[in-house]
């Protein structure tokens, strides 16, 4: 546009909209941005939707959360409830709980907003998690997107932090017990645990400070950090451009998809309203966190079958799985007069620590093992990276075992089995589950790859049985068109990278380990079919296909 304006010095917009646009543009220079992004191409795939769901549920969280702050009072001062919910009239409770009840019962639309906020929060963490699974299983974290993967991991942690700090705010019995558990876990930290607990709660548990402190974190610090991370995340998406699934016409040097304006923007923008609509439906019909049923926090009562919000479940489940005593040996130990509460410390920190460490570092681990330092913009179909997919499934199953353990009592009562047996089984699965998942997933991925080869080379089974003139029965295979075939054969199949000596001619121990890992990654591999193989395949059994195709055209 600037080139045009130098050629014709006075550009005059013809329409009113044009004049307004020109006014803004000539002062802030928007036309450059529009030129760059107006027709930017975005690939389209249903699995790219999860990140959008995350973004949109965050926007909904900001909107509904702002509404709630107008009515919520994060004070732990004692009061007697005087709202319209009869069963709790006159009950002693904190101002925070009382104001949460008022939002639910005395503010029109307050309950709806609370429900929208809670459902959106659950959906936010869930969509972040599923989005990350998509990114992991398709290899989208590879160069140049490693740093964006790290930002995503930080976002997951922040999302969980936002969820947990918000969960505790209503100061009801359920969330109070959640805080009690957190306090117990914090106290188990060696040396500084007691101090951290006293500093967090402003003294002994529960104190009178924690709700207002969590409130500040929940409405200011954590969302600000999330917003910052989202900006970085999206900025990097723009810099890198979006990844795309493999297929005809797509390679590492291009982006195939729809232009931002109008199709992609319309679809993505429309999708925001759909996410909002679905959350509104859930808020309308499914009760979430009915705090009025729980009553105010009191350290004495507790209701059985209580569960934390889903994303904290895996830590709670790990706490349940850990045995406190092994025979007569106590897992909690006293060394030099100090208490090491391993029965709390280990399950609270180790599984989450391993999961997050592997998650954060995985792009670099894989890069080191594969020696693959190229830029990747075309995604892997999960089956085409069997070992990575198997590692991911092992981690996923491990997570799910811990998650299931958080509901061990519900599993026991629901299925009428012994709670102790459920725990014993889950303890076994904690160790065995990931191994089984790894083996099964890898075999399934390899089998799917072989099936792809089979289809690429011999065509698709049509289910039509044909009897040949000499009496033989065959099933007709319909050959693929070249586009469909390319989808099955157009992938990279990395090979084992043997150990290589360094510049001094020495194969270092680290390099040997790398080579071992590389073998473990890639020794089982199914190579993509080649044109030569297709030729050969046509050589055997080819006549049948041809004959069948002939029959087909005859019958029509």
């Amino acid at each position: 546009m600037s080139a045009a304006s130098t050629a014709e010095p006075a550009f005059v917009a013809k329409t009113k909209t044009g004049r307004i646009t020109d006014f803004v543009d000539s002062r802030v220079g928007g036309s450059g941005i529009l030129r760059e992004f107006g027709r930017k191409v975005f690939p389209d795939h249903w699995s790219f939707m999860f990140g959008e769901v995350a973004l949109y549920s965050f926007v909904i969280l900001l909107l509904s959360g702002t509404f709630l702050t107008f009515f919520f009072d994060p004070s732990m001062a004692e009061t007697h409830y005087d709202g319209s919910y009869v069963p709790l009239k006159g009950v002693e409770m904190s101002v925070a709980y009382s104001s949460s009840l008022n939002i639910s019962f005395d503010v029109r639309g307050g309950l709806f907003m609370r429900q929208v906020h809670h459902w959106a929060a659950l959906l936010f963490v869930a969509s972040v998690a599923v989005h990350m699974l998509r990114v992991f299983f398709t290899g989208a974290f590879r160069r140049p997107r490693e740093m964006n993967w790290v930002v995503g991991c930080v976002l997951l942690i922040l999302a969980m932090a936002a969820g947990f700090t918000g969960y505790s705010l209503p100061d009801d019995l359920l969330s109070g017990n959640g805080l009690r558990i957190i306090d117990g876990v914090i106290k188990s930290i060696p040396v500084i645990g007691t101090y951290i607990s006293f500093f967090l709660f402003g003294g002994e548990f529960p104190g009178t400070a924690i709700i207002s402190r969590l409130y500040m974190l929940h409405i200011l610090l954590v969302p600000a950090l999330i917003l910052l991370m989202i900006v970085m995340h999206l900025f990097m998406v723009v810099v890198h451009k979006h990844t795309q699934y493999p297929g005809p016409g797509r390679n590492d040097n291009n982006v195939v998809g729809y232009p931002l304006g109008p199709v992609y923007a319309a679809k993505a923008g429309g999708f925001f309203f759909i996410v909002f609509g679905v959350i509104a439906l859930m808020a309308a019909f499914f009760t979430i966190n009915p705090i009025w049923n729980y009553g105010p926090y009191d350290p004495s009562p507790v209701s059985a079958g209580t569960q934390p919000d889903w994303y904290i479940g895996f830590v709670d489940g790990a706490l349940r799985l850990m045995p406190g005593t092994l025979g007569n040996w106590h897992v909690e130990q006293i060394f030099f007069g100090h208490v090491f509460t391993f029965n709390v410390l280990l399950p609270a920190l180790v599984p989450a620590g391993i999961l997050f460490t592997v998650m954060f570092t995985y792009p670099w681990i894989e890069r080191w093992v594969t020696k693959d330092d190229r830029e990747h913009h075309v995604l892997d179909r999960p089956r085409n990276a069997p070992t990575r997919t198997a590692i991911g499934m092992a981690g996923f199953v491990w997570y799910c075992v811990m998650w299931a353990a958080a509901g061990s009592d519900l599993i026991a009562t629901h299925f009428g089995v012994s709670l102790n047996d459920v725990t014993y089984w889950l303890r076994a699965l904690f160790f065995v589950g990931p191994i089984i998942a790894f083996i099964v997933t890898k075999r399934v991925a390899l089998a799917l790859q072989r099936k792809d080869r089979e289809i690429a080379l011999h065509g698709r089974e049509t289910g039509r049985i044909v009897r040949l003139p000499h009496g033989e029965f065959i099933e007709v295979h319909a050959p693929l068109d070249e586009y469909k075939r390319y989808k099955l054969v157009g992938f990279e199949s990395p090979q084992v990278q043997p150990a290589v000596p360094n510049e001094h001619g020495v194969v270092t121990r680290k390099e040997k380990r790398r080579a071992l890992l590389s073998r473990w990654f890639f020794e089982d591999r199914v190579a993509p079919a080649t044109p030569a193989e297709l030729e050969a395949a046509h050589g055997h059994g080819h006549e049948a296909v041809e004959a069948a195709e002939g029959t087909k055209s005859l019958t029509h």
Partner: protein
Amino acid sequence: MGNHSDGSPNHSGTVATAGQNEVEKFQDPGIPPHRLRLADTDPRAAKRAERQVALLFGISVVGTLIFLVAYFAIDLGDDSSIATIRLQNALLGIGTAFAMLGIGTGIVHWAKALMPDHEVSEERHAIRYEEDRQAAVRIVDDIVEETGIKRRPLIRNTLLGAVALAPLPAIAIFGDLGPRPDDKLAHTMWAPQDGKRKRLTRDPDGTPIKASDVTIGSAFHVIPEGLNELEEGKLNEKAKSVVLLMRLDPASLNPSKGREEWGYNGIVAYSKICTHVGCPVALYEQQTHHLLCPCHQSTFDLTQECKVIFGPASRPLPQLPIAVDDEGYLVATSDFHEPVGPSYWERDSHERSINS
């Protein structure tokens, strides 16, 4: 079928051999030819899609109206029933859902049915150019050179020292977030005050419990006398001092040495705060004499002085020594002989100082 299914590696050469990646690959056939939609070819279909989109937007308007009617027409009043709240919540939700889904599905349908659906290909550009990189390196070098930081190590080292120390106040300033723990966790309200032993009272109303009220098999949730009258820190004290009181057949209790006098006629009192992470151990199985924590399922056996028999807890529940006063009410003869609740770093030294 049979003659095509031998996809096993050894038969059809699926296992890659060295140099396989040099073998020619299938050529990329390019983006598949564009297929026209019904609305592209049939003007009537396009018109129909247009009307559908308009209808969806119309549904959105209806949704907004439903919301407004539900908001203004339903009066919560002072004595609104749960049913009114539920009705209003459902209508507000339905209204919002229609309003949003109408717009959303309308736009998406518009995009999918009527906007051009040609897939286009765009070149990716290098994330950085070698020329830029070299220029950037030169700039950084120049900047570093102009500061002279390499030539003046005195400046560099003092700056490093200053910057390393500067965050300390930012940490120290949080020192008043809470008081020092000292031995607060080691003591509860049960300690006799001015020689007067505290009665065991019912949770939550605070009425004292007569020993004769406690029948075999019964269990009481107990708080110390005077807890409800506390002006400040009531929950803090309650979080440490809640107790479960049960009566068993004295023969099934097996008190260890020194604890024979801690119960009364088979009545025993144990801390209700789980030694795992502090949930209330609220479930009492009368038949098995087990106490179960509903949070993480730690199970304690009353007949073995609340030893852990299952779950993640590692220590038995602390026992509160009790007796009966002149009027027949149950009283605590002393505080717990160990800190209650979850373990903490200083717990062992606190326990030793209590018992010394």
